[in-house]
């Protein structure tokens, strides 16, 4: 039960993230939803590489060779960096749209729907 807790967290975060993206119309909240979803996937990757009792995978002067996997951490780090860039661009789009339209609600952005 306790060992599965991280996976349950992933599920909960995924559901929260997806439902925000699908149900909310405020762009800032949609951006938050995308971020939560990314965190869920990042957590999944980290958990997959975790070994109970393992140490950080640094071989220099390592007291033991039972280590957590380094690759998932590298993947996760890359994904976080991409996430930052994504969030920045999304928020700057939202900012420009707020200036032009006076709203961040996607339902009110109707210029392209005529």
């Amino acid at each position: 039960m306790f060992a599965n807790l991280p996976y349950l967290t992933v599920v909960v975060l995924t559901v929260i993230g997806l439902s925000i993206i699908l149900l909310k119309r405020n762009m800032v909240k949609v951006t938050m939803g995308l971020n939560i979803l990314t965190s869920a996937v990042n957590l999944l990757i980290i958990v997959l590489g975790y070994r109970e009792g393992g140490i950080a995978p640094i071989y220099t002067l390592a007291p033991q060779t039972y280590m957590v996997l380094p690759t998932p951490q590298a993947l996760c780090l890359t994904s976080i960096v991409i996430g930052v860039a994504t969030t920045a661009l999304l928020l700057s789009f939202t900012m420009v749209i707020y200036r032009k339209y006076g709203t961040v609600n996607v339902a009110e952005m109707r210029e392209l729907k005529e």
Partner: protein
Amino acid sequence: MIPQFLWDHAPAMTVAVPLLAAFLCPLIGKFTATGRKAWVLAAAAATSALALFTAWRVYTMGTWVYVFGATVPNLSVPPDSGGIPIRIIFEVDAMSALMLVIVAIVGFSVILYSLSADGKRSGLEGYYTLFLLLIASIVGMVSTGDLFNFFVFFEISGLASAALVAYRVEAGRAVEAGLKYFVVSTLAGIFMLFVIAILYGQYNALNIAMLASRMQFTMLDKIALVLIIGALATKAGSVPMHFWTPDAYALAPSSVTALLVVASQASLYGLFRLIFTLYNLSLNAATVGWVLIILGVLSMFVGVTMAIPQKDVKRLMAYHAISQTGYMLLGVGTGLAVLGNVAMLDAFGRMAMEGGIFHIINHAIYKGLLFLTAGAIIYRVGTRDMNRMGGLGHRMKWTMIFFMIGALAIAGIPPFNGFASKLMIYESVYLFNPVLAIIAMVVSILTLASFVKVFHSIFMGPQLPEYEHVEEAPTAMLWGMGILAALVILFGLFPQQVVDSLITPAANALLDQSGYLASILGGA
């Protein structure tokens, strides 16, 4: 004649050159605007030359495996690694090489066109950086042999194209289109990352060849397959995930749109690559093949019917782009549906796949050409509404000729390239299921009808008083369009030679999973 380091490192340099050139752009632009133009053109030419060189070597000497950071550039499995490919690996086979050819051709013509078309805009420092970044990411997507690397390039292409779509930031609509595109693209990216987590958790590998050799096709792999199809078909702009396409294509600057078509096709390439190389026979080929066929038929039909009532010339072309993507899905999907059945595969499956793949390169060229002509018209006339155009044929003769070539090619009229690939699709799909072939032909006729209307309302009729002083598009723009138009005719006149030398090796590379695995893992 060709220096040794090119023989060793060309695949890596095809990504590195535009990537480094991109970030030097703003710096050079600080001092001289002309210098920046020359720099961008030189970078695009160098990238295209490297891509063509890589493709040429792959076509003559077989799959090219390039290992980043290895002592020997093609040492994919080091002797002390225990038979596991470590490091990031680029694997350029004939299918990737075909995509490289597309990027080389369209990338260079589009840059040439853009230097003149977008030369007067403000904020050019960032514009060409993003442009070259997009080229670099497409090259990376089509040549990588590593799933996570594919994801990174996928995200770079999403970021760069969304920023380019929203580039005309002064018009709120462009940002709206960019936002729509980017939310969809980010969601697709998260799905891809999820796929990577699922596959890595089961097989402890990120290399596509390694994953394929360990593939068990468990329940989780089926979920991963659904996510892959969902994510990549969305980015390729297939119905029912097409809603971002018309907005993004219509509001991006025209040169960007022509490149976005190629970016979408890189996603399509990713879809085909993962289905055929990662899963291949382990999946239920008939079911997945039919999924692709249904997506294809829906895209074809919905795309063209939505295109007919459009008034905005670029929006209309964007819907046609969706419709043409359907042909590729139909062709390759038919090949996939008969994958397990050798007799049917040889009878028509291979030909259907060749038709679908041939259509990818043809589409990139003629659709790029059409978007560039639309851009030239908008550049001179200043409106995108076709009802307000008319009689432009009197003043813009070259643009009219190029538009005609593109329009006849997309409608599948001989002797242009669209005819060659569509004929292959009709013939082979007819043997598989006559109804599908008939739908494809009807869509082609509707396409022709739609473009006749467009042609008439833009170019025909008496010269309108407000367009009396409209001039022909600038020379650099004409050259950009001319390269593509010449290729449309060339591919249309010699389809057999193109198919034999470019397309058949690509289709075989896609079908030959064990060959792909062997070139990385050795004889295993």
